[in-house]
């Protein structure tokens, strides 16, 4: 029951009975309640004039890194006896320190400030308004006002440092880098021998071969190292990533994409990102730190989705990637995917498949029962067959058990594997 209604009822009853029974003290008793109501009514805030500003300590932050939000509210109207400020935090963020609700007494012209610390999962968050509920001095009635206090925050996936991430695409770009270019010229690794040409450095002359053919001089060529085009395809299909009702392996895929893109960009390569899920989210290829930021923001926005058109990898728009470039596909894989990936390989792309292992991921949540173990074995065999089919097509496969740190897995994998010879086609 509302307080003012109850008080009105009591006062009304007392006055009515007082008048009917011609009892003055009864009407006098009602004055206690009437005065309470009257003061509450007369002192109720008529209008609230406030200006709110929100300051966020940073516009971008890594996952689970605390970020401080400061809100200042200036009272440009009359004195507010008591104001409750509250706001709803966007889903995915949580308060680490401080509170979202505050009550202040704000004299006219004064400003109040409060702070809280938040953290959260990967995403792009917008803050919009705060709600102010001003109360009368007896806290009987309230008046609500919304004050705009906009802000935005990118929570980016952590960028792990990867070592030895060597690739060997068929085609490279003209700028020097660290990717072997399959072309003779200045470099480190021996590539070929050719006839001496004017201007070749003397230390490049192959003396042994030149001695064998006295009329000709021969020069050693080294393999040029250049930057390459790297296209990262992040599989955001719900069917591939959603393991059970609330558990998704997509966060690991996003983490892998951030690490790989960061490493390739640090090596000087031109990197683009395609998030393939409910729709196609394409980050145009580019170089350097700006591109790194663009990709991280795209990853912050990446969400799982389902679409009839993009339910299969079949519709990856290969036109976006230069022919014979390097593709990094990050996907947990579903049954139809290996054929599509092999076809992609046959078009001349060099592919590295990074596949977060959904079987171990799901098994870690299941009870330790024999029937689950049996099911796990069967599904694992199916997955092994899929991965084997892809490996036979000359595709490097990183089978990532997500309980192991990604950088550790990648460093081990790329240290162990030498550059693979060219090979296409499946198992004969």
């Amino acid at each position, binding site marked *: 029951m509302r307080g003012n*209604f*109850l008080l009105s009822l009591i006062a009304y009853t007392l006055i009515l009975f007082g008048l009917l*029974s011609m009892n003055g003290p009864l009407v*006098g*008793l009602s004055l206690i309640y009437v005065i309470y109501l009257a*003061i509450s009514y007369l002192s109720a805030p008529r209008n609230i004039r406030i200006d709110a500003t929100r300051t966020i300590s940073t516009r971008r932050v890594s996952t689970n890194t605390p970020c401080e939000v400061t809100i200042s509210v200036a009272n440009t109207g009359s004195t507010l006896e008591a104001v409750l400020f509250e706001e709803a935090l966007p889903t995915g963020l949580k308060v680490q320190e401080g509170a979202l609700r505050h009550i202040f007494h704000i004299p006219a012209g004064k400003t109040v400030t409060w702070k809280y610390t938040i953290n959260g999962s990967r995403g792009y968050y917008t803050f919009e308004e705060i709600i102010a509920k001003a109360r009368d001095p007896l806290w009987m009635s309230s008046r609500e006002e919304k004050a705009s206090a906009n802000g935005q925050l990118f929570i980016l996936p952590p960028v792990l440092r990867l070592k030895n991430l060597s690739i060997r695409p068929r085609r490279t770009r003209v700028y020097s880098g660290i990717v072997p270019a399959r072309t003779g010229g200045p470099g480190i690794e021996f590539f070929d021998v050719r006839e001496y040409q004017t201007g070749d450095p003397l230390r490049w002359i192959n003396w042994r071969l030149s001695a064998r053919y006295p009329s000709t001089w021969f020069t050693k060529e080294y393999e040029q190292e250049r930057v390459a085009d790297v296209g990262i395809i992040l599989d955001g299909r719900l069917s591939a990533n959603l393991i059970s009702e609330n558990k998704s392996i997509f966060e690991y895929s996003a983490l892998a994409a951030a690490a790989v893109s960061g490493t390739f960009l640090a090596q000087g390569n031109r990197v683009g990102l395609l998030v393939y899920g409910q729709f196609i989210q394409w980050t145009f290829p580019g170089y350097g730190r700006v591109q790194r930021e663009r990709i991280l923001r795209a990853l912050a926005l990446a969400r799982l989705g389902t679409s009839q058109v993009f339910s299969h990898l079949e519709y990856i728009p290969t036109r976006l990637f230069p022919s014979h470039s390097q593709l990094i596909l990050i996907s947990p894989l579903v049954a139809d995917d290996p054929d599509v990936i092999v076809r992609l390989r046959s078009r001349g792309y060099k592919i590295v498949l990074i596949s977060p292992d959904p079987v171990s991921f799901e098994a870690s949540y299941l009870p330790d029962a024999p029937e689950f173990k049996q099911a796990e074995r069967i599904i694992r065999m199916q997955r092994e067959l899929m991965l084997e089919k892809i490996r036979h097509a000359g595709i490097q496969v990183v089978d990532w058990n997500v309980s192991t740190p990604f950088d550790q897995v990648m460093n081990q994998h790329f240290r162990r594997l030498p550059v693979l010879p060219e090979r296409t086609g499946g198992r004969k």
Partner: protein
Amino acid sequence: MNRAIEVLCIVISTTVLSAAYITGGYITAAMVIVFIGAGWLVAELYKWIPVTFLGLLFSSLAAGAGILLDLQIWLVFLGAAAGLAAWDLTRFNQHLQLAADTDDVRDLEKRHLGWLGGTLFIGLLLAGGSIVAQAQLPFGWIMIFAILGVLGLVRFVAWVSRS
């Protein structure tokens, strides 16, 4: 601090109202008031908020009945005012639970207690004044005031319901 005053108000309301009934010779009614006051106190300690509405309703009912029974008027007024204060403070404390740890709750409490004290003082003063300065009005005037009062209260209740 607020909570202690709140409990004190319940105790005062119960004690004063029961004292008024005892001095009037209504021992059983006084015992009922003490019993209900104890129940209100227990409900307050366990934070059963809806019971405070019943507490306010009962204290005003007991005060109204006390006036009809010609009990000590000042005791009755005081009991009613203390009941209203207890109910108000319960609501206030409930609202204060939304405040953050860093908020200056003590200042809000002081300000509210100041307003509440002032309001009750004015209310008691006017109620007492209405007893001291009694004027004999003709029946017609009484009817007009009654109709105006009822209409005014109806409009007020309607405004309260809307807001």
